[in-house]
């Protein structure tokens, strides 16, 4: 009995949706007011406009980079959390999907060291001789 039940679950997860028909767990889980999407849409427009203005007004140096990264992270967060519904998923899925890309930051760190080293070698050994 139990084995058969598990078999059914593994084979036909879509049955689950079917069994509960409209307004089932699945549908209810991702039903949000249209207003929410429109608000997020508006914010994405505002944030994009802000990041464009950073370039338009020619802001430079650390202020430019931190503003660009700030707007980027806010936009990415809104898209993933609201549009992709990650905010309403169970943590088991959210962590499985969001944690691995965070580890890419380690890779970024490694490549920053590597490219600084390459740059140093190029400056030292391939500088145009006067």
């Amino acid at each position, binding site marked *: 009995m139990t084995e*058969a039940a*598990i078999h*059914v*679950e593994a084979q036909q*997860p*879509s*049955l*689950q949706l*079917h*069994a*509960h028909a*409209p307004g*089932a767990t*699945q*549908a209810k*889980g*991702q*039903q*949000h007011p*249209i207003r929410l*999407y*429109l608000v*997020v*849409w508006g914010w*994405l427009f505002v944030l*994009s406009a802000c*990041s464009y203005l950073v*370039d*338009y007004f*020619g802001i430079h140096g650390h202020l*430019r980079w931190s503003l*660009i*990264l700030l*707007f*980027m992270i806010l936009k*990415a967060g809104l*898209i*993933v959390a*609201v*549009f*992709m519904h990650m905010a309403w*998923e*169970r*943590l*088991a*899925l959210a*962590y*499985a*999907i969001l944690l*691995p*890309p965070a580890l*890419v930051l380690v*890779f970024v760190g490694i490549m*920053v060291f590597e*490219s*600084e080293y*390459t740059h140093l070698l*190029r*400056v030292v050994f*391939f500088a145009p001789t006067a």
Partner: protein
Amino acid sequence: MAEAALTNIGASPARLSGWRGIAADWSSDQRAFKNVSWGKAMMWIFLLSDTFIFSCFLLSYMTARMSTTVPWPNPSEVFALNIGGAHIPLILIAIMTFILISSSGTMAMAVNFGYRRDRVRTAALMLATAAFGATFVGMQAFEWTKLIIEGVRPWGNPWGAPQFGASFFMITGFHGTHVTIGVIFLIAIARKVWRGDFDVERRGFFTSRKGYYEIVEITGLYWHFVDLVWVFIFALFYLW
């Protein structure tokens, strides 16, 4: 029997939350992703792998840009356009960004109407999304043409570090391919929605499985991901 099993996994009322929930979900000796169908879970896992691909492109771009001794071409100038006599920096890319964000908005609403089983609005919004996407690809083709005419090649360009062209064509090309595939995907699913496949649970011609409105959300996940990648490309390649 099936009914009992399904209620078991479907709508078990008390599920732990927080860290205890993660441990319970993963150690339950069943499926780790409760109340998420296989289709949605697999799309998320595919998107995770795609994240790594784009991460590698952006990382190699970063490495090239940081390690070159030749100045990097100024994207603000390279992508500037003359519109009505005014010289506006990066304007084409800004318009492309707004178009892609708009397409994400229409997509999110299509998912919403899909779960309300509003067949006509769902299909219309999906087609609007596809139209925005096609516009985006068209503008990208225009941008590529302009740059190629100006002499940008994967191995060199008139303004500075030769790696600029290679990074540009690889990153935007791969993203544009994703958008194109997304447009095709959207049109295919919108056709099914329009025809009422998910209301009558018509079986797919290839898989012969019944379709559900959830596929609209899965298509949406892919589409939002394409927009998400553009957020990073816009910030790190065009604005940096």
